[in-house]
Structures are given as C-alpha cells and as structure tokens.
C-alpha cells in the first residue's frame, strides 16, 4: 500500500502499524457480529437442543423468542460473511497471514506449552506470536469459515444438498454448526482473558500498536 507522493518511503513507515486501521475495523466489526451470531444462535438452539439438558438462559440470548433470534441471525450473517471475506482477502493479499501465523514449528509448540505450564505467560513482543497463539488464531479463522459453510448448509439444505451430504446429512451439519460455535466461544473466552491479562494487546487493537518494519506486517 505504498502511497503515491513525493516521499513514499516516509508515508509507508508512518502507516505501518502492528495492526493497520483495516485490521482494527474488521476486528471490532467481527467482535460485535460474532456476539450477535452466537447469542442469537443460542436463542434458536433452545427450541430443539443438541445436548440434552443444555439450554441458554434468557439473559444470554439475543431476541426475546425464536422468531427474533432468527431475524437477528439472518441479518447478522451478511455482516459476518462480508467482513470475514474482506478479512481473508486482506490477510492473503498483504501477506499478513503468512507473516504472522506461519511457520509453526513443533519445537516451538513444546516450548510454549512448557512455559505456559510454568505460568510464564509473558507476551513481551506484541509483534510476534508464539506457536500456540498461531495455532489458536488459525483454528478460530477456520472455525469462522466452517460456521459460514455449515450455516449455508442448514439454511438451504435442498439448494445445497450436495454440501449437506458431504457434512453427513442435515442433523450432522447442525451438530457441526453447534461444535463450531463451541470452538469459537472457547477461543473467545481464552482470547479475552489473555487480552485482559496483557492489556497492551487490547490497547494495540484499538490504537494500532507499535510501528513495525516493512518486512513485518
């Protein structure tokens, strides 16, 4: 994104933050829309539960009964899909995914796990992720994609009957959609907890964080 100007170099240096504006906007849009999708999904879920005995309390649900939970869900889906597609396009086009989420080395995973077990949760350098962080972010991105795919399958099981068959049938697709939600909720809990433990990460997602070299994005 080198701006055309008399001093493109300087502009580039100024613009390059750990989290560029586009990433921050997409992150917070996603945070809100994920909350809408998850809580409205819980409202839909309650009418025919996947896990016997598991119901979501009224205060956790968006929409005061199923009709409005469905309307929230089918309104939120557009924002989720459009924002998600922009994020994926941006991540691949700018090389951000490759730079930040790869490579993942087995030795690094072992190292991080050992540190974590010793309660060493330091995140001194915000510009690099450890192996476990990389895996968690990749899992969250894949779970988000899986939710859109399984969501389309259970929304239009006749028009996309091939996709439903691939997912093992309608009820199976529904269960996968539920598991995808559980994975994302699990990620959100860990993600928010760690962000609160290391508030600088939260601050950097609001203000952009430290300026970084051109090779790191």
């Amino acid at each position, binding site marked *: 994104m080198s701006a055309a100007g008399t001093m493109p170099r300087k502009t580039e240096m100024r613009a390059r933050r750990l989290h560029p504006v586009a990433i921050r906007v997409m992150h917070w849009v996603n945070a809100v829309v994920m*909350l*809408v999708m998850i*809580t409205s999904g819980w409202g*839909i*879920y309650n*009418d*025919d539960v*996947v896990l016997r005995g598991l119901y979501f309390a009224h*205060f956790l*649900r*968006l*929409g*005061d009964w*199923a*009709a*409005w939970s*469905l*309307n*929230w869900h*089918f*309104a939120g889906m*557009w924002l989720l899909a459009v924002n998600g597609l922009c994020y994926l396009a941006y991540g691949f086009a700018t090389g951000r995914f490759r730079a930040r989420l790869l490579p993942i080395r087995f030795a690094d995973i072992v190292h991080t796990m050992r540190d974590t077990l010793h309660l060493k949760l330091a995140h001194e350098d915000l510009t690099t992720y450890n192996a476990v962080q990389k895996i968690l972010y990749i899992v969250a991105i894949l779970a988000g994609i899986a939710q859109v795919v399984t969501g389309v399958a259970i929304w*239009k*099981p*006749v*028009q996309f*009957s091939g996709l439903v*068959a691939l997912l093992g049938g*309608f*009820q199976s697709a*529904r269960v996968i959609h539920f598991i995808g939600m559980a994975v994302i909720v699990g990620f959100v809990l860990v993600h928010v907890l760690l962000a609160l433990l290391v508030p600088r990460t939260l601050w950097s997602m609001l203000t952009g964080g430290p300026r970084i070299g051109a090779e790191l994005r």
Partner: protein
Amino acid sequence: MMRSPFRPDRIPDAASLDDHKPLLRALERRGLIRGGLSLGALTLLTGCDVKRPEAVEAALLAVSRFNDGVQALLFDPNRLAPTYPDSMVLKPPKFNAYYDVTQVKPVNGAAWRLELAGLVADKRPWTVRDLQELPQSSMNIRHICVEGWSYIGGWRGVTLRTFLERIGADLRARYVAFKTADDYPSSIDMATALHPQTILATQYADETLADPFGYPLRLRMATKLGYKNPKWVTAMEVTNTYPGGYWESRGFSWFAGL
C-alpha cells in the same frame, strides 16, 4: 377474597402521607433514574433484547424481507430435494402445531369441500373423491422444522401443479394462499407451488392421512420449512396480493425455503 398479608390492620392517617410526600417523590425520581440507567446498560449488553425497540424490529423485518428475495433467487425450480426409501419413513409422523395434539378438532371428510377463489377459471368446490381421481404422486422427503428437528415422511396426493392446471389457475400469479380448519392461514410463491415436490397430500405411508396430521387434505412441500405446510386445508386462493400467514405475521420469514 383473600386479604393481603402486607395490608396494615389500621389504614394510616392520610396526613402522614402528606408529611412524607417530598421524600416519596425523591425516592421515586431516584429509582426512575437508576432504573433508566440500568435499562440502558442492559440494552447495550444484550443488544436491545430488553424491549425490542420498534426501530430495531422494523430494521430486522426489512432485512428479513430482503432475505425473502434472496431466498427466491436461490430457489432452483428444477432442483429436487433428496428422497428416501420407504423403510426410513417415520410412523406416525411427528405432530406439531401452535397448540397441543389434544386440541386437534377432526374434520368431517364427507362434508368437507375444498373451496377455490381468486385467479382461477373453475371455482367449483372439490370433494375428497374428486381429488383422489386426479393423478397421484408419492414422495419420501425430509420434513425440517425451523426449530431444528427433522424426520422422513412419506406423502401421497396430487401435485399442486397438476391441480392448478386442472382448475385453470393463472400460473403467472404471484401467490397461492391457503385457509385451514384450524385457523392457520398460509401462503407460498408460485415457483414453489409449481415445483414437482409440492403436493396436496391425502395419504401418509400408504394410508389415509390421520386426523392429527391434516385429514383430509394438507399441503406438503420438500422445499420449505415445516411451518409453511398447512394442515386441514379448506380453501385455496390464487392471488397477486401478499396474503401473509400465521407465523409470518409473528415475525418469521415468509419464503422459508430449504
């Protein structure tokens, strides 16, 4: 009538209420402010769950109508829903309505007539026997409820397309609307009405439709959610005026295609 345990034995002197009026009013006002604030906070937390403000409701319904259009575009009139072997058919089918199965009021098949209205050339009412003389089709299809449950049902009857052609309906009209004995109005788009897996069912699993499931006539579509399939149909109208439906008027999607 039972006396409230909180009611004092002796009614207090009205003057004492006057004495404390300013204090009462202050308390009320403080409570109102506090209540208002926490309501506001709650609204933020839960995304306006608390009272469903009209503007939010209107916006959601506008998106739902937009989604109806998208669903109509996604609907492929030539795509058939998967079908299943007879061995997978659930007997009896699952009952579901806006009331309990014990509230079902059976319809007298001998006196029953299917009334016709709207953009139809021949509005002569139909008896059960008239319908049985039309060519019959069978389909074992998955019934999918908006709640999430589903089952395989085996339905038999005349396709709605054959019936519409027989009565000289205007097949370019936008809607086919239904009235039922259980006061459950419903309507569908013409494209779905003409789909080969849309039938006026009179039989289930090779037997006459039982009372709880819509005897003598119900609509069954492989390409729409369960709530779009009215039971105990008594009248049908072909129209260009949006007819709505029971759940649709309560916020559910009208197209509800699968």
